[in-house]
């Protein structure tokens, strides 16, 4: 039967009071003197009281000692034993307390067990997390490095693209220059063709004039030849005359001789012969003069003929030169036309090349854009990676903290000794 402690105290008190009263009541019956009655009663009361008190307190103290021990054990962390109170006659709150304490112990035991398991698991997880986060940090460092490399590569790309772009711009410029020069060449070739055509026409006109002139010169030459022939005839006649004069002279000579031999009779004859001789002399003289003139004419005519031949040769050479000039002009025209065609071809090719260069520029611009996008994306990736890295670091720290915490927890609960523990 459960009796609460307060009741027990009250009962005890009542017993004491009752015993006192009893004693008081009894004492006159016992024959004790009235002076000693009070003392006696007090003494009995005290005695009873002390006795009861001792009985109570013994049990009480014993219980409380056990409870204290139990609580002490609990405070030490020894959860292995339950508090066992000796079986009382009258259970009271102390039993309740013991039961509660045991409950507490049991709960604590459970809790600690759970905590131990959990914290062990947490520690494990924290380790795993730490390791994973380290791996992740490492790999995110790798990613960061790769991204850095990509970024550098993108820089190089951008540089190359810039260079390429510049080269293409220069190329486009030089193509333009080439086209310009080609058009100039075509123009010049055109001019050359025109000039050569003019020159060719001039050459032809000169040739015609020359031919006419040579025709006339031939006619002159023929005339001079005929002159020469006439002069030769004159010469022959003069020779005849000279011969006659010589013969006449001889005749006169012989006549003089005969006349001398004839002596007196031949004197008149001698005079006549003398006259004839003189005439013959005069004739000879004149004939001589004519011959001289003829010689002069012949010389002059020969000179003229020679100079005409020279002229003719020069004219021929001139004609040949003009022919050559005409041919040369033809050749010039041909090569100028060829140059024109080539220049046109170059101009066309340049236009194509310019178009091609334009396309190239567009392509390079595209590439440049892609590279810029890539660079931006890389930057983002880099930033994200950094964030990730930071988060990883934090996570690692958190994991470490968690681990530490778990260890702390473990350390804290290691104080508690469960019944399952082999060591204290």
């Amino acid at each position: 039967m459960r009796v609460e402690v307060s009741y027990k105290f009250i009962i005890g008190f009542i017993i004491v009071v009752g015993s006192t009263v009893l004693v008081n009541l009894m004492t006159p019956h016992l024959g004790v003197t009235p002076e000693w009655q009070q003392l006696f009663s007090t003494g009995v009361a005290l005695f009873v009281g002390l006795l009861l008190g001792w009985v109570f307190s013994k049990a009480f103290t014993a219980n409380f000692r056990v409870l204290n021990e139990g609580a002490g054990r609990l405070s030490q962390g020894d959860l292995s034993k339950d508090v066992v109170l000796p079986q009382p006659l009258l259970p009271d709150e102390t039993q309740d307390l013991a039961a509660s304490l045991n409950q507490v112990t049991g709960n604590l035991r459970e809790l600690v067990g759970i905590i131990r398991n959990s914290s062990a698991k947490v520690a494990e997880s924290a380790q795993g997390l730490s390791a994973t986060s380290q791996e992740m940090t490492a790999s995110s460092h790798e990613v960061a490095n790769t991204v850095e490399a990509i970024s550098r590569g993108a820089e190089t790309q951008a540089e190359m693209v810039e260079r390429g772009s510049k080269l293409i711009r220069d190329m486009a410029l030089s193509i333009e220059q080439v086209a310009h020069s080609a058009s100039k060449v075509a123009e010049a070739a055109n001019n050359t063709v025109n000039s050569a055509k003019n020159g060719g026409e001039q050459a032809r006109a000169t040739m015609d004039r020359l031919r006419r002139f040579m025709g006339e010169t031939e006619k002159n030459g023929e005339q001079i030849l005929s002159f020469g022939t006439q002069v030769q005839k004159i010469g022959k006649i003069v020779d005849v005359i000279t011969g006659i004069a010589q013969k006449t002279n001889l005749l006169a000579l012989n006549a003089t001789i005969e006349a001398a031999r004839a002596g007196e009779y031949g004197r008149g004859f001698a005079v006549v012969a003398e006259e004839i001789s003189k005439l013959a002399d005069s004739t000879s003289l004149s004939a001589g003069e004519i011959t001289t003139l003829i010689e002069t004419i012949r010389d002059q005519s020969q000179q003229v003929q020679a100079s005409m031949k020279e002229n003719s040769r020069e004219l021929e050479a001139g004609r040949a030169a003009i022919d050559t000039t005409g041919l040369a002009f033809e050749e010039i025209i041909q090569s100028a036309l060829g140059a024109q065609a080539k220049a046109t071809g170059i101009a066309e090719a340049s236009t194509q090349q310019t178009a091609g260069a334009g396309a190239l520029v567009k392509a390079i611009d595209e590439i440049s854009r892609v590279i810029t996008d890539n660079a931006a994306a890389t930057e983002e990736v880099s930033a994200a990676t950094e964030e990730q890295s930071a988060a990883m670091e934090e996570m690692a720290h958190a994991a470490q903290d968690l681990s530490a915490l778990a260890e702390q927890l473990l350390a804290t609960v290691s104080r508690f000794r469960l019944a399952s523990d082999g060591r204290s």
Partner: protein
Amino acid sequence: MEQVLVFDLGEERYGLEVGHIQEVADSPVLHYIPQSPGFFLGAINFHGQILPVLDLCNFLEFPAGPHDPRKIVLAVEGCALALAATAVHRIVPLAAEALLPFQGSPGRESFIRAVFHHQGRMINLLDLPRLLRRLEAA
């Protein structure tokens, strides 16, 4: 007044009296005489008569030169001869007073009888007899 036929022998001008001359032949055909002395130029046919031609230049030891085709046919008694000169000129009158004596070089036989002036030149008159004598002797 003599008449003298003037002719050249080389550079020298010579003369011969017309009296010694028959005729001046007009370039007769000259036939070569084989094995004849050097002073004979050849032979000519003069009116059917064969006349030897004396090369005066050669005979008088002048340097050789061209000959006038006209040959001087001599009219000397018993002498059929023609003379060849470098050039035959004309007949000039000669006054006897104009004749000048000629001194030949000693040790050398000259066939020059005398000299006279005519138109600024010295003309040596040929000594024909002496020449002919000399010729016969050779």
